[in-house]
């Protein structure tokens, strides 16, 4: 079956009245929860996972598609109206978006974000539909050694490339892998890290882990540092754009899409790098350079499009290889496994109708997002005023409910609290959360591939590099690991070399206290600069 006819079948499934209803619910819930401060898309999906357990997989995934894009869009609304982005992917949007809102152009900022998200999301989803089967065709020829290498690459790339401190990333990865070890060993049936506790022998439920780290950890962390002075929220009417705004937006949308999709699809992609690149590109290409820093619409249109295109790109390795590259995809992958669906390249073969229904509902969700969110923007802005005690008490309440309803065991709530405390500690001491989640989810699968590989080679470690693809990937892994050293050597040979984006206002305010464990800047595009932006953005908020 070719892509087009499969996709049409997908639409037929997704457009049945009940499934369409789930898509609408997903988009509305996703946006509403995404708009709420403190709740990102990953947490939204984690909190709603238990609710979808009773749905049949197809409906559940249709709902997830809506939640996914809804949550992404909700985050940008928050950053435009509040100037304190909740997720690193909307940091860049806040730079110009909030300036626009302050200058009375909130309606245009929201409109260009919504329409740009729609354009980028639609193109990105189309690219996903085309690319994923190609990747699958390539992937089915790979054996265990290559899979093992790809998964190692994904784990290391996310740990070493994203985040400001590699050491803390690896610490987080180690904790995640350790959590993933808990339970019965799948090959020999030996109990590992269960301490004789029968309730632990099935392992820790991934929903409980995700909800604990994302929701409980976040609620406790915010409670410890709750802002007592209310944030200034910019009132907004119906979003709209004038002719001039359209003229200035459409090119940044397309450029943002081109930047966003490939980065999203890479193992350590994520949306931070492309949104940042898009901002820099638009700043260079704009005909209104004087407006940058004061609220230029290009600076919202480009990064928002890049953000959504990256969101679509992320789904390519997730669906085609079973490889999550951001937190939301990781949680969705956990949902796959909890439905007994085996992620990996066989997915398109074994669960074809479900996958194509999911892709079709991504198109539908994207369209609904535009139709629903343009008129509802003023309502979403009101959600931002929800009293904080209710918001965070509500997060704890629903986190508890969600974790408890999986197995109806009070024991799960104890784990929820313990891991919530771990999440709190990680936020306090700057340990990134993503490596932990990926470690929990990918850890057991990496181990499985390792054992299968060595089983095939009868214990000979040479089996690990018996496939050319695997060798190529190990070379990439080595480059990533050696990157700080390479960069140091390169800098020494060219001492005047400056980072390419020295023009960013944030870099000039670099935090002198900041020390990096890896020594040199681990990657020219790591989110150190974005973090600084976030800090200054938060700092700016304090001014009356």
């Amino acid at each position, binding site marked *: 079956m070719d892509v087009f006819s499969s996709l049409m079948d997908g639409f037929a499934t997704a457009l049945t009245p009940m499934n369409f209803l789930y898509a609408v619910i997903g988009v509305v819930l996703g946006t509403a929860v995404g708009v709420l401060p403190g709740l990102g898309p990953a947490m939204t999906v984690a909190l709603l996972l238990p609710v979808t357990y009773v749905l049949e997989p197809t409906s559940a995934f249709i709902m997830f598609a809506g939640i996914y894009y809804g949550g992404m869009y909700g985050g940008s609304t928050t950053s435009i109206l509040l100037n304190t982005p909740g997720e690193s992917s909307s940091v860049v949007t806040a730079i110009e978006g909030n300036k626009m809102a302050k200058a009375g152009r909130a309606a245009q900022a929201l409109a260009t974000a919504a329409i740009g998200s729609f354009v980028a999301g639609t193109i990105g989803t189309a690219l996903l539909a085309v690319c994923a089967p190609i990747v699958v065709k390539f992937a089915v020829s790979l054996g265990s050694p290559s899979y093992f290498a790809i998964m190692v690459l994904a784990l290391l790339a996310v740990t070493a490339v994203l985040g400001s401190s590699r050491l803390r990333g690896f610490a987080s990865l180690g904790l995640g892998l*350790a959590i993933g*070890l808990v339970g019965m060993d799948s090959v020999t049936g030996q109990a590992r890290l269960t301490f004789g506790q029968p309730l632990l022998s099935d392992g820790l439920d991934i929903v409980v882990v995700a909800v604990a780290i994302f929701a409980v950890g976040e609620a406790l*962390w915010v409670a410890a*540092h709750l802002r007592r002075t209310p944030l200034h929220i910019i009132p907004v009417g119906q979003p709209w754009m004038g002719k001039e705004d359209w003229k200035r937006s459409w090119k940044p949308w397309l450029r943002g899409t081109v930047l966003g999709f490939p980065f999203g699809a890479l193992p350590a992609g994520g949306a931070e790098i492309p949104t940042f690149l898009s901002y820099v590109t638009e700043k260079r290409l704009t005909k209104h350079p004087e407006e940058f820093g004061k609220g230029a619409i290009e600076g919202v249109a480009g990064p928002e499009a890049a953000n959504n295109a990256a969101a679509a790109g992320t789904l390519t390795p997730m669906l085609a290889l079973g490889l999550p590259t951001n937190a939301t995809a990781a949680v969705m992958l956990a949902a796959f496994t909890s439905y007994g669906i085996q992620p990996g390249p066989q997915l398109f073969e074994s669960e074809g109708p479900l996958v194509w229904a999911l892709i079709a509902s991504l198109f539908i969700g994207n369209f609904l997002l535009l139709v629903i969110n343009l008129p509802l923007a003023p309502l979403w802005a009101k959600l931002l005023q929800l009293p904080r005690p209710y918001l965070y008490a509500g997060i704890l309440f629903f986190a508890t409910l969600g974790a408890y309803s999986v197995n109806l065991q009070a024991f799960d709530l104890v784990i929820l*609290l313990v891991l919530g*405390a771990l999440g709190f500690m990680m936020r306090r001491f700057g340990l990134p959360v993503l490596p932990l989640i990926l470690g929990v989810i990918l850890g057991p699968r990496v181990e499985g591939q390792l054992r299968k590989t060595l089983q095939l080679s009868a214990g000979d470690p040479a089996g690990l590099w018996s496939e050319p693809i695997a060798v190529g990937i190990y070379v990439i892994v080595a480059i990533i690991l050696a990157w700080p050293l390479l960069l140091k050597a390169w800098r020494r040979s060219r001492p005047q070399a400056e980072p390419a984006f020295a023009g960013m206002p944030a870099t000039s305010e670099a935090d002198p206290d900041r020390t990096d464990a890896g020594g040199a800047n681990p990657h020219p595009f790591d989110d150190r600069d974005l973090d600084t932006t976030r800090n200054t953005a938060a700092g700016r908020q304090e001014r009356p």
Partner: protein
Amino acid sequence: MTSLTSRLKGRSELGVALLLGAAGGLVLWDAVGLVTPYSKSDPVGPKTVPYIVAGLLLVCAVMLAINVLRGGHGETEGGEDVDLSHPADWKTVLPLAGAFIANVLIIDWAGWVISGTVLFWGSVWALGSRHYVRDGLISVSLSLLTFYGFYLGLGISLPAGLLEGIL
């Protein structure tokens, strides 16, 4: 002694290194305790990966301790409602954790409607709301709504506990 305390001051992050070390030690100890005869069909065995994970954790623990003693520190996470200018407010966090623990302790016995009310009401109180009546009403209705919502909508029966027969 004083030089030690002054050196340790503000280095609470060493606790993270300690935790990583403890976790690594635990994984190692657990892996050593596994008894597995060598088998041809599984040359890797259940011990190898725990050894690797334990090694990773222990190396990270040592490196983090060195990093912290040299003056490095992790970057605390910001957010919309996070104000990092004041120190951690334990007067909020501890009651909040208390409300959570209360829920864990009574959920099986008192049922979700009561324990959920306690959880929400306690959390809202801990977070600084002082509208006792309004908060109480919201707590009860949230718990009741989710109880019936889960039962009727999702087919999951949360424990009724003390209110068994009434609900």
